[in-house]
């Protein structure tokens, strides 16, 4: 079985579906037996969600107006 540090090193890749079949099998075998790494996995999932939720950015009206004006001013 892989060690906790090996499993933890690959948790984000595991969540992203970026690990190969062999790694997938060894991570899942590890997770089935290790409660702490399950906690790490759950936290990695939450942290990823935190990043996703921070992606929404409001555009100030004045900025949008200036950028739209830039487009209007473009000449062939």
């Amino acid at each position, binding site marked *: 079985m892989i060690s906790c*540090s090996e499993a*933890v*090193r690959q948790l*984000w*890749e595991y969540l*992203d579906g*970026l690990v190969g079949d062999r790694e997938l099998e060894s991570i899942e075998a590890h997770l089935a037996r290790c409660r702490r790494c399950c*906690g*790490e996995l759950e*936290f*990695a999932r*939450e*942290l*990823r969600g*935190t*990043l*996703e*939720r*921070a*992606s*929404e*950015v409001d*555009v100030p009206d004045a*900025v*949008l107006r*200036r*950028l*739209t004006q*830039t*487009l*209007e001013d*473009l*000449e*062939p």
Partner: protein
Amino acid sequence: MISGSGCNNRASPIRLKDVTQVGVLYTEAEQAERFRLLAREQLPRLYGIARKLVGSDAEDAVQDCLLKAFRNLGQLNDESAAPAWLASILVNCCRDRGRTKGRRPEEVNFEDVEEFSLYRKIAYEDPFPYSDSLHLDFLEEFTAEDVRSVLMRLSELYRVPLVLVYMEGFLVREVAEILEAPTGTILARLHRGRKLFEKHMWSYATDHGLLKEAAR
């Protein structure tokens, strides 16, 4: 779909691939109007990406992007690819701005970073002793603006792939194309970027008193 002359051959009208069969040609003025329509739709998204990549320089970066895209409109062969094409130009404008400002990749001891686990750090430091959901409570202290500020602590080398993959939903291979780097390089930057992000989440929380506030 747009094909044909680029900005160096402005005298010729632009042919649209999807209407070429019926012989429709676009004049330069019509081409410019189509570009305005395409780009206008993308402005909120472009500004959002730029805000996460260059912070307060976002508006300037989007201006650079619009001018550069318009000059190189001939490179766009398929209008449906316009969102990705504009994003690609924007990312490179943001990187140019970072270089102009002389931002250098931070000095990082990757052995330390590799071993860092925010999950374990929170458990060990136990910033909210009465909490039964310690880790979630830690994350809840961060507003969206805080998270974006944490990202700004990372060097552009790691921030760009993290933002594009985890916030903008690009695939790793698409990021590799935008940054003109091998997929393996992007994967390595994502790996290190995630670790650095975790480390900076902790340092940001301590620097900004997020943990102290929560303990009250």
